[in-house]
């Protein structure tokens, strides 16, 4: 058996192949969609605003994902979480999957994995534990999408309401989750206060760009509200905690 290290050049190369693949796919789809948007008559300036706004919006969550990379890197080295958190799941999946597999081998993520067999067990569990969307989506994509299109085609108004209900259903789960810790006392209310700050800032920015007709603000209102609320969570936590 070859000598194993979680930070070996070989694992870096393997991770780099995956990251380059995912990056290439993003660039490919960006070019395809951009060309199609122009064919449909969408203005270049609007598309640029959408792209810039999406990039700004991504910064804070991406830094949070980077924190997940750091957490996993203690046990798995750097290349594996670098590769894993650029693909498929999220920290909320990768961390429990790695922990579950490590525990099954009698190890823990609190220390560096030095045994190749333990490492491959963790890697196999992390890979196969969330694989269904990759082999099912190619076959179900058009059917699910056609079903949604047909809802809108039969009754346009209901189609719009249906889509709004889908989004609100998703958001309601996360809004509910924010209240899950209120039983812990005042500290459990911190996420609620942060959420309210974000909502108030978003409302204020919304009024500002509608009444003040500041068009550019509309594209950045959401990332601005999110980052401001994250910043406010620091004094809120200090005041309460």
């Amino acid at each position, binding site marked *: 058996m070859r000598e194993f290290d979680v930070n070996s050049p070989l*694992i870096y190369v393997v991770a780099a192949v995956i990251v380059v693949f995912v990056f290439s796919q993003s660039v490919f789809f960006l070019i395809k969609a951009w060309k199609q948007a122009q064919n449909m008559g969408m203005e270049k300036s609007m598309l640029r605003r959408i792209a810039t706004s999406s990039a700004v919006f*991504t910064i804070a969550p991406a830094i949070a994902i980077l924190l997940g990379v*750091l957490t996993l890197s203690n046990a798995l080295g750097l290349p594996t979480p670098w590769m894993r958190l650029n693909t498929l799941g999220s920290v909320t999946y990768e961390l429990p999957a790695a922990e579950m597999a490590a525990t099954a081998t009698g190890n823990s993520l609190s220390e560096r994995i030095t045994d190749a067999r333990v490492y491959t067990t963790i890697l196999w569990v992390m890979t196969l534990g969330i694989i269904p969307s990759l082999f099912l989506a190619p076959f179900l994509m058009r059917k699910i999408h056609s079903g949604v299109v047909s809802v809108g085609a039969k009754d346009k108004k209901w189609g719009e309401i249906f889509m709004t209900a889908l989004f609100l259903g998703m958001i309601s789960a996360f809004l509910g989750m924010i209240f899950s810790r209120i039983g812990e006392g005042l500290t459990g209310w911190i*996420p609620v206060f942060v959420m309210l700050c974000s909502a108030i800032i978003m409302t204020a920015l919304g009024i500002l760009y509608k009444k003040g007709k500041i068009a550019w603000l509309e594209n950045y209102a959401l990332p601005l509200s999110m980052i401001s609320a994250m910043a406010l969570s620091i004094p809120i*936590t200090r005041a309460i905690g």
Partner: protein
Amino acid sequence: MNEINNNGELGIKTPRDYFSTVNFYGRIWMLSALSLFIAVPAFVSIYYDAWPNLNEFFVGFIGIAPTFWVVAIIEMFTYIPMLGIGGSYLGFVTGNLTNLKVPCAINAMTAAKVEAGTEEGDVISTIAIAVSSIVTTLIITFGCFMLFWIRPVLEAPILAPAFANILPALFGALGVVMISRGWKIAVAPIVFMLVLFMLIPGLASAVGILVPAGVVVAVVAARLMYKKGWL
């Protein structure tokens, strides 16, 4: 927004052409991703001659797969209508859907004033998710290689509350955007989820599984209100 006919006249690409093309390439990319992702542990196992002990693998796998396979399957039915074909092919491969890609796509579609489920919505959602994936990859890659310098900043105790509260900060603002589109539709799922999470706080770790439950409550309540003429 310009309407595009379905006859393909004057060589104009029709939405049907676009969807077929995206679906064709999406399948190739996704099946390639599937092969490549499985090849990684296979290659490492072969190279180090270190295959997992089957018992240990199954204990770990059974501990994680029943939950996350169900979540992954349900996510397809929930997110494909929201993200469209191009956005979904990309989003499912690049991951981080609920905490990043879906909110990013909603933000972009709202700013562009296009509806999900339409051709315009599909294109805008794809652009947003592609840009988001590219920026995420760049930030994570930059962060990994600059780790020595940025680790003390990222792990500074003063910043810990900001990263601990990223979801409340995200969904507070997003909630305003979506609730303003149809507050009547929002009442039933939000009340349902508030009661559920306050009664069973432990469900917070399984919020991904509860997304479809919220969707079902929202759609059923919206349908009833629509039939009664309240919307």
